[in-house]
C-alpha cells in the first residue's frame, strides 16, 4: 500500500479516543505546527520588545507611533538594499539600512520591526474579541436551540449578509463621526478594530453553533444531565472545550485580515477619514505607500523593495500561522491523529 504513496489509516474506527487530552508537548512534535509556532513566537517577541525595550530600534525611548523618527538626512529617494550605507543616508545605525529605504527616506528594517506592535497587537485583539463573542453566541444558540437559536441566527444571517469590507469601513465611519460629534478623542485604529470585530464575529458564531449542535447530540451530554449537571456547567465543561477546535482553525485563517484591511484602507486613500497617518508603523501602510513608488523599467521594477519586503514579511506570518492551523487541525481530528 505504501507504493501508492498514500496510507489509508483505519483512523476513526481504530482509535476511538473521543475526548482524550492533547498536550502542547505532543503538538510541538509535529513539524508543521512547530514551524508555524516559531514564526508566530518570533513576531510576537518583536512586538513585545517594541513595548518592553523600544530603545533597541535606536530611535530613542518610548513606543514608536510615527515612522518619521527614523528619517535621517534629507534624501527622499528610496535607496536599494544592495547599496552600502554611506554619508548620503544620514546618521543612524548601519543595520537600519540593510533592507534599503522607502518613501521619504524611511529605512525599511526598523520600520517593519516597529510595525509588529500595531500589527500583532491589533490582530490579536480583533481575533480574540471576535472569536470569544462568536463562541459565546454560537454555543448558546446551538446548545439551547429553539427560539433562542432562531433569533440569534437570524441576527447572524443579517450580519453575515453585510459585505465584509464595506461593513467594516461603514461601521468605522459611524463610530468616528459619533465620537467627533461628542468631542471624544479617538484612535482610528481602535475604531477600525471594533468595526472588524463586528464584521468578523458572525462567522465564529456560525462555526461554533454547528460544532455545538453536533456535541449536543452526543451521549455524554445526556449522561452529564442524568448525572445532575446543570446547563452552565455543561456549557463550560463539555461544550466549549470541544467546540474550540474549529474556532481555532478559523482564527488561523483570519490572522492576515487586520493587516490586509489596513493596507486596503491606505491604498484606497481612506486613511484621512480615520485620522491615520501616512507614517503609521504598520505593514499594510508600508505596503500601500511603497506600492505607489514601484514603476516598471526595462528588465524589471524600479524601487521594488519599498513594497516587496513588507509583503514578504506579511506572507511569512500568514503562511506560518496557516500551516500551524493545518497542523493543529490534523492533530485535533481524532481520525488522523497519528498519520
Amino acid at each position, binding site marked *: *500500500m505504501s507504493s*501508492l*504513496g*498514500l496510507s*489509508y*489509516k*483505519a483512523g*476513526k*474506527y481504530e482509535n476511538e479516543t473521543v475526548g482524550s487530552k492533547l498536550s502542547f508537548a505532543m503538538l510541538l512534535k509535529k513539524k508543521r505546527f512547530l514551524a508555524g509556532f516559531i514564526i508566530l513566537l518570533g513576531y510576537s517577541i518583536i512586538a513585545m520588545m517594541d513595548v518592553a525595550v523600544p530603545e533597541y530600534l535606536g530611535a530613542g525611548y518610548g513606543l514608536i507611533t510615527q515612522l518619521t523618527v527614523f528619517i535621517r538626512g534629507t534624501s527622499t529617494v528610496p535607496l536599494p538594499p544592495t547599496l552600502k550605507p554611506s554619508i548620503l543616508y544620514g546618521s543612524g545605525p548601519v543595520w537600519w539600512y540593510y533592507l534599503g529605504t522607502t518613501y521619504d527616506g524611511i529605512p525599511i528594517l526598523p520600520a517593519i520591526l516597529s510595525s509588529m506592535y500595531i500589527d500583532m497587537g491589533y490582530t490579536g485583539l480583533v481575533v480574540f474579541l471576535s472569536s470569544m463573542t462568536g463562541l459565546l453566541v454560537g454555543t448558546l444558540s446551538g446548545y439551547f436551540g429553539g427560539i433562542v437559536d432562531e433569533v440569534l441566527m*437570524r*441576527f447572524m*444571517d*443579517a*450580519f*453575515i*449578509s*453585510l*459585505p*465584509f*469590507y*464595506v*461593513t467594516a*469601513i*461603514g*461601521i468605522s*465611519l*459611524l463610530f468616528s*463621526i459619533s465620537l467627533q*460629534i461628542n468631542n471624544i478623542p479617538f484612535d482610528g485604529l481602535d475604531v477600525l478594530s471594533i468595526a472588524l470585530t463586528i464584521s468578523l464575529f458572525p462567522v465564529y458564531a456560525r462555526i461554533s453553533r454547528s460544532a455545538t449542535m453536533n456535541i449536543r447530540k452526543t451521549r455524554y451530554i445526556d449522561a452529564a444531565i442524568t448525572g445532575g449537571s446543570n446547563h452552565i456547567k455543561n456549557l463550560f465543561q463539555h461544550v466549549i472545550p470541544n467546540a474550540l477546535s474549529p474556532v481555532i482553525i478559523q482564527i488561523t485563517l483570519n490572522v*492576515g485580515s487586520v493587516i*490586509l484591511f489596513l*493596507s*486596503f484602507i491606505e*491604498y*484606497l*486613500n*481612506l486613511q484621512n477619514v480615520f485620522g491615520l497617518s501616512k507614517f503609521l508603523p504598520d505593514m499594510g501602510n508600508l*505596503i*500601500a505607500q511603497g*506600492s505607489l513608488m*514601484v*514603476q*516598471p*523599467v*526595462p*528588465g*524589471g*521594477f524600479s524601487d521594488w523593495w519599498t*513594497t516587496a519586503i513588507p*509583503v514578504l514579511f*506579511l*506572507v511569512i*506570518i*500568514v*503562511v506560518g500561522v*496557516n*500551516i500551524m492551523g*493545518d497542523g493543529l487541525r490534523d492533530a485535533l481530528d481524532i481520525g*488522523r491523529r497519528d*498519520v
Partner: protein
Amino acid sequence: MDLRLYIASRLVAIIPTLFLLSLLTFFFSKPYLPVYGSFLHGYFSYLSMIFHGNFGIINTAMFKGQFISGITLYFPVTLEIATLTSILTLLIGIPLGTYIGDSNNRSPDYLSRIITFAFYAMPVFWISIILEFTFGSRIGFFSGLFGGSSGLPVCGQGYSSAPNMPWITNDISSPTHMLFLDSLLHGDFTLAYIALLHLVIPVVALTLSMLSIIVRYIRGGIMDRSNSASTRNAVERGLNHRSITANYSMRNGYFPSATIIGLMMAYLLSGSLVVEYFFRINGLGFLTVEIISNLNSIKTNGLALASLVLFFGIIFMIANLAVDLVYYMLNPEVRV
C-alpha cells in the same frame, strides 16, 4: 420535505433577515442619512423611503443620478468579472485541490499549499501591480505579448477600442453593459477578443487571491473521503488508487465545497472593490469606493450607500439560498 415546501420555507425565513439587515444598515449609516429625530422615528422614515422606491441619489464624479439606474449600469460589469473569476478559480482550484488532497502530506502538497497561502496573504492590489508590470502594456518582462509592442491591456474594459460601433456611445453603454458578452452577441469577434484581453489581468489577480480558499476546501473534502470507511473498503477489495480517487473520493469529496463556491461568488460580486479601483473598471466596486470617498456632512450619497449595502446583503442571501438548494438536491442526508 418536498422541494417546493423547502424553497417556500427558506423564502419566508429571508423576510425577518431582510428587516434585521435594514435595521443594521440604518444603525451603521444613520449619521449620513437624510432622517431626523429619534432612532425609531428615523428608522421608520428610512423604511418608508425604501418602500416608496426612494433608494437615494448617487453624486460622484463617475456617475450622477438615481441609485437604481446606477446599479443597472455598473452591476453587470462586476457580474461579468465575478463569473469569469469563479469559472477560472474552479478550473484551477478543483484539479489542484484534488491533486493536493490526494498527495496527502508529501512535498507537492506542502509546496502548493504554501504557494496558495502566499497569494492569499498578499493584498490583491499588490498582486495586481505585479501582474500589470509583468504582463501589462507598459515596459515589462513580457511586453511583446499579445500583438505588437504592447502587452495585455490594464485599464478600463476596452470601450475605447470600439469607437465606430453604433451601439456604443460612451464608456459603459453597450446593451447589457458587459462588453465581452455584447460583442459576442453582436458577432464582432475582434472586439470580443479585445474585451476579453482587458479582463485577463483583473480576473487572474482575483483568481490568485481566491484560490487558496477553494483549494483548502477541496483538499479537506478529498482527505476526509480518503479516510472514510467506503474508501477503506475499496482498498481492501483491491481497487487501484486512481479508480478509488475518481469514483469514491472525488464525487463525495466535492460536496462540502458547494457551500463555499456560492459564498465566493457573492464575495466577488461585492468584494472586487480594490481590483476595480486599481484597473479603473466601471463596476460596482469602483462605484462603492467613489461613493464612500464622496460622503460628507451634508449627507450626499448617504442613502445611496445604505441602499448599496442592502443590495450587497440581498446578493449574499440569494447566494446562500442557491447554495442551500444545490446542497439539498445533491445531498440526500439534508432532506429528512
